[in-house]
């Protein structure tokens, strides 16, 4: 019976949803956003299409981000989104779904209740066999690091809703800490900054675009300037504004300083033997936040430990589920050798 079960790995992130299906690879990699018709409750769009609707809809459409700060805040929407992905994109039938083993990834510091919600979600979808694993564990595996040897490793995952810092050894987490300062928080801060300095309100999508275009933590590079449009908060008319990399850096620096503080706090609590390993192997960075230019230098300058960004920061969690599905997260079994 076990052989017939198909593995399904889900990285249900605040910003992006990735679904890994055994034998097929990553079948879905789009923003975790879903749009409903208000009257009929039907799904109008999901993923990238729904993401484009953010802040642009008329009152007949309801656009929802089912996750907030790494955990499910809207169960119905989360379920609809998952169902949409599996049924529409992958054409999976109910019967096929009842033959799956699912692993859902979550931030390391979530409550039992929040984990149970994730399990409920998969059960609701029709997947009978569900287990929950930490995102950092999957992320480390997905980036090609062997976490099953007796060597300590530190991983920092800067996602959409949460930043997760963990120390791994022997195939599991030794200690970890989560803060709710990550991609979305950066967008909010950028929007807030522009509102206070320019008197222009910009939308969620524009703020995100601004971050992607201009975010850098390098201090010496030439400033790039870009033009964005928003609404004048006094007059209400649309206006263009210029934003440069220096300003965005000013906004991002305090956030990354907080992340560095969190890393140092965790390092302080790390058992000395593992500290020695971390000193050798360095820190690995995953998640969308690691795409910001100069982030590795920024962290290593402050804590004097080598930091490197993995090759696939956005997909490593989903890729890591491939291994976790093999050993069901059991630290004794090294799936890399299976």
């Amino acid at each position, binding site marked *: 019976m076990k052989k017939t079960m198909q593995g399904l790995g889900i990285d249900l992130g605040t910003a992006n949803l990735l679904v890994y299906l055994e034998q097929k690879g990553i079948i879905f990699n789009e923003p975790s956003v879903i749009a409903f018709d208000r009257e009929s409750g039907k799904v109008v769009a999901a993923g990238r299409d729904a993401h484009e609707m953010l802040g*642009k809809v*008329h009152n007949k459409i309801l656009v929802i981000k089912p996750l907030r700060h790494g955990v499910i805040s809207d169960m119905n929407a989360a379920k609809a989104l998952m169902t949409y992905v599996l049924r529409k994109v992958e054409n999976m039938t109910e019967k096929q779904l009842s033959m799956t083993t699912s692993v859902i990834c979550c931030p390391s510091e979530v409550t039992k209740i929040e984990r149970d919600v994730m399990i409920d979600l998969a059960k609701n979808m029709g997947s009978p066999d569900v287990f929950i694993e930490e995102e950092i564990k999957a992320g480390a595996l997905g980036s090609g690091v062997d976490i099953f040897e007796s060597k300590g490793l530190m991983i920092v995952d800067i996602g959409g809703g949460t930043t997760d810092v963990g120390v791994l050894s022997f195939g599991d987490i030794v200690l970890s800490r989560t803060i709710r300062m990550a991609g979305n928080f950066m967008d909010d801060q950028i929007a807030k900054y522009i509102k206070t300095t320019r008197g222009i309100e910009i*939308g969620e999508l524009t703020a995100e675009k601004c971050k992607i275009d201009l975010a850098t933590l390098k201090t010496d590079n030439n400033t790039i300037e870009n033009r964005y*449009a928003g609404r004048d908060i006094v007059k*209400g*008319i649309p206006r263009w504004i210029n934003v440069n990399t220096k300003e965005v850096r000013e906004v991002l620096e305090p956030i990354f300083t907080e992340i560095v503080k969190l890393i140092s706090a965790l390092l302080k609590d790390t058992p000395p033997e593992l500290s020695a390993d971390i000193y050798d192997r360095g820190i690995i960075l995953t998640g969308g936040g690691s795409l910001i230019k100069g982030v590795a230098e920024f962290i290593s300058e402050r804590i004097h430990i080598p930091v490197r960004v993995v090759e696939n920061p956005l997909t490593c969690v989903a890729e890591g589920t491939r291994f976790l599905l093999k050993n069901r997260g059991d630290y004794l079994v090294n799936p890399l050798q299976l």
Partner: protein
Amino acid sequence: MKNQKTDNGKNMGKRQAVRIGIDLGTSNLLVYVEGEGIIFNEPSVIAMEYETGDIIAVGFNAAEMIGRGHHGIRIISPLNQGVVSDMDAANKLIIMALQKVENVNIDLETSTVLICCPSQVTQIERDSMIDLAKSLGVKDVFIEEEVKAGSIGAGLDIYSSDGCMVVDIGGGTTDIGVLSLGDIVVSDTIRVAGNYFDNEIINYLQYEHGILVGKRTAERVKKDVATLRKNLEAPLSTYANGRDVVSGLPKHVIIKQEEIRNLLIDPFENICNTILKVLQRTPAELSSDIIKKGIFLNGGGATIDGIDEFITDRVFLDVHRSKNPMTAIAEGTKILLQNRGNYFVKPTD
């Protein structure tokens, strides 16, 4: 195809069910019939005999009679400020308009009818539009907003997530809407539009020139010289004939373009303020789309000289006139009839 329900066609002989789009404007009535195109594009005016209620004229012919009728003729504009004010007359007007169809024998009972209305009308006013269609014997009727139909007719892709702003300056109402994803996000309607300008002209001529003129004359004066340009390079002038207020004798006056411009500035300031009001309520993400695309103008008011410059000065956005300001709404109904105004079905032409 879908529009030819064969079962009904058999029972009704040659009568056919078609899809009809009606732009029932305060000043003009446009009727679009599928397969035929725009079959009627004339003023919404009807002239009836007082006693019998027989129809004497509709459209242009009836409009010619405005202010010239005798006591045997009743000349009616069935719409007032964008909504139906005389149900019976509106009913007759549409029936007469539909008779212009040549090739199809319309079976109204099984046809689908779309009527356009201003965006900010009460439910009762909308219901009166539905009642109007029901009184024609139509069972399948739905109401859509004029701005929506107008923006489609002007060639904008409202089904994308890029927002756009449309200003429709009609006869009775000026409608301002921000559209995205196939429907209206924010809108506002003010009752300052073509007819209001005419009345302003009538009042002005009465007080400044001591002459009483009719609606038709005021409208002609507006069409001749209306402008909103700040600097008039070669000012035009026109004339108006009417009755002297004091002596009661027919009188002829010359009107300068400048006078009309100064007269129009106030109502258009009013329209600009409403545009600003709508922009204030627009979500920031759509504001950023509007600044890229600019504002699109529709309706008779869009043909006024210098209006783009006037609005740009006040709102600081690009202003584009649609190619077919007068017929855009009726052309848009063609698309809306296909998807019944459903925002998430993008109709293909």
